[in-house]
């Protein structure tokens, strides 16, 4: 009897996984490290992480406003909720930094904690990395190649490309407008290489299109260095199947001279454009929302703020005596001081990369699993990410607090107070075991 149950359970799980694989598989993830730009505002790129950061800020501000709009001595509802959070944070901080310091550091540390944890948890919402606008990469590549002043590529004076650039996209039905990333979309990437002329890149692009969209068979080596015959064959394949079409310019018309076309060295013809069929686009979904701290700019900003506030509090508490920690002439201590100074700056980097690495890796993991094994396994990762989101927020806030507590403490051998032993012990613990706290 029991065996039957187990078999049924396994069959149900297997069926569930199969349904996921057949009907709910995510698109092949196109992992882009920099945050995608949604629009530009002067020199500022409005990226999807920036947009998400604003939404998180708005949520925090609105909810906290509502919670404290009419405070009652007998708390209830949202006021109670926020009071519990603030009370918890304050109690934890008082335990580490002592009552006076906890009050001083509270606003900054609590803001770090709240901003990070709400961002991380909000980033687990299902619409993250899924809904976005599409970018028509197929056309964009041709325009970049054909343009004498490309935006994403850098042309050297000798007419070759200076830097590598990867154009990433999915084979999609549609381009333009707002979409939900379709299940099972195939990633197709085209890379412009260093030292290539636009013409050579165009030839490779033709072969690439023929291979990906028209089933033209060619090996990888030839894909990178196609011969003229192969390019011609690829162009013929594209012509034959009809999708996508190369639009040939007639002879030497004025379009070519204006930079609206590009001559293919292999075909000895000027190509005025590429036309994709509606069901055969090469496009990329640029999600509207992406985890705030999967962007190094945001984590670095937070790290810089933490660094700045720690140094500020140090100076505020000790005046210029604060610098004695770093610059002194006490034999070996002068060397230790330099190391200390260095570690202050290294903290920014460790702050920034710890948070960035964890959150970015979590997002990639969720995207990869929705592609490989939608349903079931990804749920486990979601649970794990909830935990990681909390841990990372705690670690960032806690380290800021501990470093700040260390910074405001009196150093030097002669002034060791006996009365606030607790504070010193806590700080000393953190001081001597920084690895434990930074292990995450």
């Amino acid at each position, binding site marked *: 009897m029991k065996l039957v149950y187990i078999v049924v359970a396994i069959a149900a799980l297997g069926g569930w996984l199969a349904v996921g694989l057949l009907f709910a598989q995510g698109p092949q993830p196109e992992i882009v490290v*920099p945050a995608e730009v949604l629009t530009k505002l002067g020199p500022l790129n409005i990226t999807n992480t*920036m947009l998400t950061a604003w939404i998180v800020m708005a949520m925090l*501000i609105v909810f*906290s406003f509502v919670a404290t709009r009419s405070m009652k001595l007998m708390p209830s509802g949202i006021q109670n909720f926020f*009071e519990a959070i*603030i009370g918890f944070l304050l109690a934890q901080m008082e335990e580490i930094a002592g009552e006076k310091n906890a009050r001083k550091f*509270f606003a900054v540390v609590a*803001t770090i904690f709240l901003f990070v944890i709400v961002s991380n948890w909000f980033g687990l919402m299902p619409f993250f990395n899924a809904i976005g606008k599409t970018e028509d990469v197929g056309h964009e590549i041709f325009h970049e190649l054909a343009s004498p002043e490309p935006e994403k590529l850098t042309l050297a004076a000798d007419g070759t490309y200076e830097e590598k650039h990867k154009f990433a996209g999915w084979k999609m039905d549609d381009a333009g407008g707002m979409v939900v990333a379709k299940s099972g979309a195939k990633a197709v990437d085209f890379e412009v290489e260093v030292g290539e002329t636009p013409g050579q890149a165009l030839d490779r692009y033709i072969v690439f299109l023929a291979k990906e969209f028209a089933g033209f068979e060619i090996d990888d080596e030839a894909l990178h260095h196609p011969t003229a015959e192969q390019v011609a064959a690829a162009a013929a394949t594209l012509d034959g199947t009809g999708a996508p079409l190369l639009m040939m310019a007639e002879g030497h018309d004025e379009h070519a001279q204006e930079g609206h076309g590009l001559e293919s060295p292999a075909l000895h013809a000027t190509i005025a454009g590429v036309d994709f069929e509606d069901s055969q686009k090469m496009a990329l979904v640029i999600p509207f929302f992406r985890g705030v701290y999967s962007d190094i700019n945001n984590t670095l900003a937070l790290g810089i703020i933490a660094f700045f506030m720690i140094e500020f509090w140090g100076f505020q508490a000790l005046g210029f005596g604060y610098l004695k920690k770093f610059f002194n002439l006490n034999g070996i201590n002068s060397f230790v001081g330099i190391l200390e100074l260095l570690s202050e700056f290294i903290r920014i980097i460790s702050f920034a990369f710890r948070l960035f690495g964890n959150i970015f890796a979590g997002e990639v993991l969720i995207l990869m699993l929705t592609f490989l094994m939608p349903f079931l396994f990804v749920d486990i990762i979601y649970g794990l990410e909830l935990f990681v989101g909390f841990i990372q927020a705690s670690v960032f806030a806690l380290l800021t607090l501990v470093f700040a507590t260390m910074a405001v403490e009196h150093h030097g051998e002669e002034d060791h107070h006996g009365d606030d032993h607790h504070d010193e012990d806590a700080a000393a613990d953190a001081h001597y075991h920084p690895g434990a706290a930074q292990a995450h």
Partner: protein
Amino acid sequence: MGQAVEALGLNLPQLIAQIANFVVLLVILRLTLYKPILKMLDERKAKISEGLGAAETARAEAAAAQANIQGQLDTARKEGQELVANAQGIAARIQAEAREQAARDREAATERARAEIQLERDRAIADLRGEFADITVRAAEKVIGQSLDRQGHQRIIDETLAESSFGGS
């Protein structure tokens, strides 16, 4: 370095914008969240400690009042007991006096009765004596008047005695 920066998407305007975002959030949350809630927490703490103090005072006062009442009750009970004891003493005395009085009255009455009886008896004896003498005198007169013998004498005395109502004792 430059390539790493580009690969990670580091971008100065965005970095500055994020720092600004944080500062804005910090300032606003300070106003809308930390200040009011910390104030409320402190206020509540003060209220509670105040309330606890007041409760302590009230309890001490109640205890004092209780002790006071207990003392008063004890005093009252003692007084009551004293009163009762007094009353019982008085009652016993009154009872004893009454008993004594009654005994004395009874004695007096007996005495009086006895005296009266004596008096009556004395008077009766005196009366008898007078009567007897009288009878004797009259008997003597008769004797004298008739000069009688011995038998006559005897008869006369008997007649006289029979005439008198003095019959016995």
